[in-house]
C-alpha cells in the first residue's frame, strides 16, 4: 500500500458498470515525510469516505482490490483508509507535516 493525498474527485458519467456506485478520487502518492513521491497521480475508488485533502492509504494492486470490489471488476486501485497518524522510529511525523 502507498500513502497518498487526495487531490481531487473525478466524475465519469459514461463508465464501465463495475464503477457504478463508486466515488472516484485522484490521489497523489507521498513519501512518509510528506513530500511528493516520484510516482504519478493515481485514480482510485473510494472505500473509506475520503475527501479532498485527506491523507489516505492507497491500495494499488489489483487482486487485493478485487477482493473488496468483486473478482470481475476492472478496478485496480482503491483508497482503503483515511490516515490519522504516521510514526517513523516511534516519532509521530503526521499530523505535523
Amino acid at each position, binding site marked *: 500500500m502507498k500513502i497518498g493525498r487526495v487531490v481531487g474527485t473525478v466524475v465519469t458519467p459514461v463508465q*464501465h458498470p463495475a464503477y457504478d456506485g463508486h466515488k472516484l478520487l485522484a490521489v497523489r502518492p507521498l513519501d512518509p515525510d510528506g513530500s511528493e513521491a516520484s510516482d504519478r497521480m493515481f*485514480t482510485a475508488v473510494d472505500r473509506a469516505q475520503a475527501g479532498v485533502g485527506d491523507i489516505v492509504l492507497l491500495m494499488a494492486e489489483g487482486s487485493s482490490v478485487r477482493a473488496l470490489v468483486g473478482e470481475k471488476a*476492472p478496478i485496480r486501485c482503491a483508497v482503503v483508509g483515511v490516515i490519522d497518524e504516521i510514526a517513523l522510529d516511534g516519532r509521530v511525523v503526521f499530523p505535523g507535516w
Partner: protein
Amino acid sequence: MHLGKVIGRVVATRRSAGLDEVRLLIVQPLDEQRAIAGDTLVACDAVQAGLGDLVHVCDGREATLALPVPFVPVDATIVGHVEQFAHDGPGPQIGAGDEP
C-alpha cells in the same frame, strides 16, 4: 488507474485471439493540472471514447476484465469518460464542455 487524453488510434488486423472487436487508442497520461504525466501508451476502449476525450484508464491485469473476452493479453483499458474533475491545486478545474 490514471487519467489521460485520447490522442490517436492504432489499426492492427493481426491480433491475439479474443481481441477481434476491440478498438485500440493512443492515450497521453495526464496529472491533475492536465500536465503530461508519463509516456503515451495504447489502451483498449470499453466506453466508445473518441479523439480528444479525457478518459479514465485501468491498467494491469484488471484491464482485461472490462473487455468482452476477459482472457486476453491486455494491460490497459479505457473504462470511463471524464466529465468533471475537481481538484485542490492552482490549475483549471475540468468540467463538461471544457477544451481538454
